[in-house]
């Protein structure tokens, strides 16, 4: 029994560092909207006219050029764009409205 307990202890000690070192790294470009929403949800933008995935690609492109933006997700079901900002970074409502308009859509609401 002692040998068994010793073996279990050794296995546990041997694998603990490996488990502790495992990190879940989210690729912002590949992260679905719902996952981003649970991690960090800095700005939620309700957008009118956003019905086509093919056309809404421009939104990710436009927001992706901003230094303050970590990730942008588009949720066509909700009609929302979710923008994850860098810690401490600012992105004004006016700038958001300008970028959504430039992409061809209209902002109806911004929630922070």
């Amino acid at each position: 029994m002692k040998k068994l307990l010793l073996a279990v202890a050794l296995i546990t000690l041997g694998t603990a560092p490996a488990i502790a070192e495992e990190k879940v790294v989210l690729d912002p470009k590949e992260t679905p909207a719902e996952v981003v929403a649970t991690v960090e949800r800095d700005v939620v933008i309700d957008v009118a006219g956003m019905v086509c995935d093919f056309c809404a690609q421009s939104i990710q492109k436009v927001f992706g050029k901003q230094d303050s933006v970590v990730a942008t997700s588009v949720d066509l079901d909700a009609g929302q764009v979710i923008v994850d900002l860098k810690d401490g970074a600012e992105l004004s409502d006016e700038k958001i409205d300008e970028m959504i308009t430039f992409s061809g859509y209209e902002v109806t609401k911004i929630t922070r």
Partner: protein
Amino acid sequence: MSMNDNDTNSTHIHYSPTINYSIGWRHDYQRDTSTNMDSIQINNLLKRWNKKGEQANFYLKSGVGIAYDDGEAAPAAFTGIALDWETRRYFTSYENKFQWTDDVGNSFVKHKARVGIAPYIGNFGDLHTWLMLETHFDAGEKDSFGATPLVRFFKGTTMVEAGYNLDDGVLFNFVQRF
């Protein structure tokens, strides 16, 4: 983009500095007259309507260039409007094109209309599928009418359309955004 319909093969490469217009080069090959045309095309978005769950657009598309065949070349020009309305489930569009060529090939007026339905609603990043019916009416020498059922797929920045009509043959369109 590459568009291949009942009587024309075309390639259009354009750049949109803003959503309001694009400028680019267009090549058309009219199969029935074996006529080529190279042109500079400008598309203007005259009006866009953004509503919750729907969008509509009104475009003016125009170009000037040169038509040529068998060593002959002549000036050519075209213009037309395009209207579309879509939700995530339904799509409808209409466009026309008035093309004038001097001596080379034929001048013509074309009308096209489409209706479409998405059999399922995909979210951003999914593969999207549309079932569509395109009708066309070519006024002028041919005065022909046709209807082509087609399927449209798009994912990300790539769109492909394929259809077939017993009278007009294969329709194949490809659009890549950069």
